[in-house]
């Protein structure tokens, strides 16, 4: 298995020394994220999110299925994410790497297990018909911090998506085509966003948010925090890596809280802009 060549000694040394001076290679401040660029596709629920050169495509579709007997009142959500070698040479098809496992699990935790989507509202006819939402995440290119980008793409895709209107008459379910009745947005409890911080071996070096590819490669530990604009933490993930003091963890949470509020505004604005530019034909 050829491992990608790790950054050379001069590169590492230079990055460490520049980070120590709080200078980042792309000119950002240590606690400055790349502004995500959201592009909406022609279909509802088709979102491409770009943070610098990191790009992730998310797509949602819905299907009517019979619910499993143990949860007759809830809709289903499945997330498909696979990091293909397209995203970067270090990803291989077949056995998932640690990064890929982490990405899949985090997406599952942030988007599905955090109760972002009201699953009960996806039920059409108890025990008979529920909506099955399928989110597919395509990682197009990895230039650092793919996790945050994928989470953002996923959550925005859910917010952007609208499912067809349904009507229940007796035991029959009528699905209205989007051209007949306006499709309805999903009912969401909250909007979680994920933020990743990278810590470096030298404890004097300040952590950076939204690490670039190189920063991620030379970092000694990452902490990912998913939370919504209401200050509710959904996921904290710091799997090993350099030990941090409690204060450092809490400081990271504080920063993430502020970033989440700003990001929430941006996402809402972009979604509104897109919705205004969209014509939904209703006869």
């Amino acid at each position, binding site marked *: 298995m050829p491992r990608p060549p790790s950054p*050379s*000694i001069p590169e590492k040394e*230079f990055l460490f020394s520049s980070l120590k001076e709080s*200078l980042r*290679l792309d000119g950002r401040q240590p606690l400055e994220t790349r502004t995500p660029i959201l592009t909406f596709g022609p279909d509802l629920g088709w979102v491409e999110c770009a943070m610098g050169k990191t790009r992730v495509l998310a797509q949602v579709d819905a299907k009517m299925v019979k619910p499993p007997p143990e949860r007759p009142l809830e809709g289903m959500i499945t997330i498909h994410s696979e990091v293909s070698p397209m995203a970067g040479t270090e990803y291989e098809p077949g056995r998932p790497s640690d990064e890929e496992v982490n990405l899949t699990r985090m997406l599952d935790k942030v988007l599905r297990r955090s109760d972002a989507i009201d699953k009960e509202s996806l039920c059409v006819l108890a025990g008979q018909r529920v909506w099955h939402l399928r989110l597919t995440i395509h990682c197009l290119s990895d230039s650092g911090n793919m996790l945050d980008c994928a989470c953002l793409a996923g959550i925005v895709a859910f917010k952007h998506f609208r499912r067809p209107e349904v009507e229940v008459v007796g035991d029959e379910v009528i699905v209205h085509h989007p051209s007949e009745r306006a499709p309805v947005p999903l009912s969401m409890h909250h909007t979680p966003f994920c933020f990743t911080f990278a810590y470096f071996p030298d404890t004097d070096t300040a952590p950076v948010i939204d690490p670039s590819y190189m920063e991620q490669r030379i970092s000694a530990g990452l902490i990912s925090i998913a939370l919504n604009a209401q200050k509710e933490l959904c996921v904290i993930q710091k799997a090993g890596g350099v030990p941090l003091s409690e204060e450092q963890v809490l400081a990271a949470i504080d920063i993430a809280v502020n970033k989440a509020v700003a990001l929430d505004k941006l996402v809402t604005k972009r979604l509104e802009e897109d919705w205004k530019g969209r014509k939904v034909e209703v006869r």
Partner: protein
Amino acid sequence: MATTFILPGERVRAQHVNLKLGPGLLQHAENDQDTKIISTKAGELQHSANNSKWWIEGNSKRYIPAPQESVVGVVTARSGDGWRVDIGSAHPAYLDGLAFEGATKRNKPNLKVGSLLYARVSLAHKDMEPELECFDAQTHKAEGFGELKGGFMVRCSLKMCRLLLNPNHFLLPLLGSRFPLEAATGLNGRVWVSSKETKHIIAISRCIESVDPDGGGMDEAGVHQFLGTLDI
């Protein structure tokens, strides 16, 4: 000379008694009398002043080694008496321990895994591993080749490093007028730069990235303006 853009499969009317074809051109014989020269990649068609040498200058990112080109590489492993060096090509290159100025069996430079090198491709054959050397084979003088210490390595497209090697290109002189800098440009899309101050290196790196035709393709005026926004 006006540049002609060319697409793969187009016929090139290159004629010379002593014709030499460079990358991107293929001689294609349909029958004995009629030999055609066609292009195999997209880019700018270039030829030497006397029309004897023709080649296509494209902009790719993957480096294909060619003899006598200088490259910047990273040592990835020791192997035998030499080192295996990543130069961004399909296969790792081999650098012999004796291919340095003044190197003997006993006195070899001590390169660590992860060291940066400025070297010249001495052998590039499609069926063999590329080989590197860190001296001039005739004179056995280093001539600037060898280990690169400190500084930083910037990655760019192959077109960008050809531009940087062009003495008429504006970027390096412009940066040099602002602060002292050292640079070693490899033809494999890697540029090693060094300067006293961290922020200067960052500025160089960002300028190269924004001038890169693959990225922003910024022009001279744009760089002037860009440098103004940086704190240097």
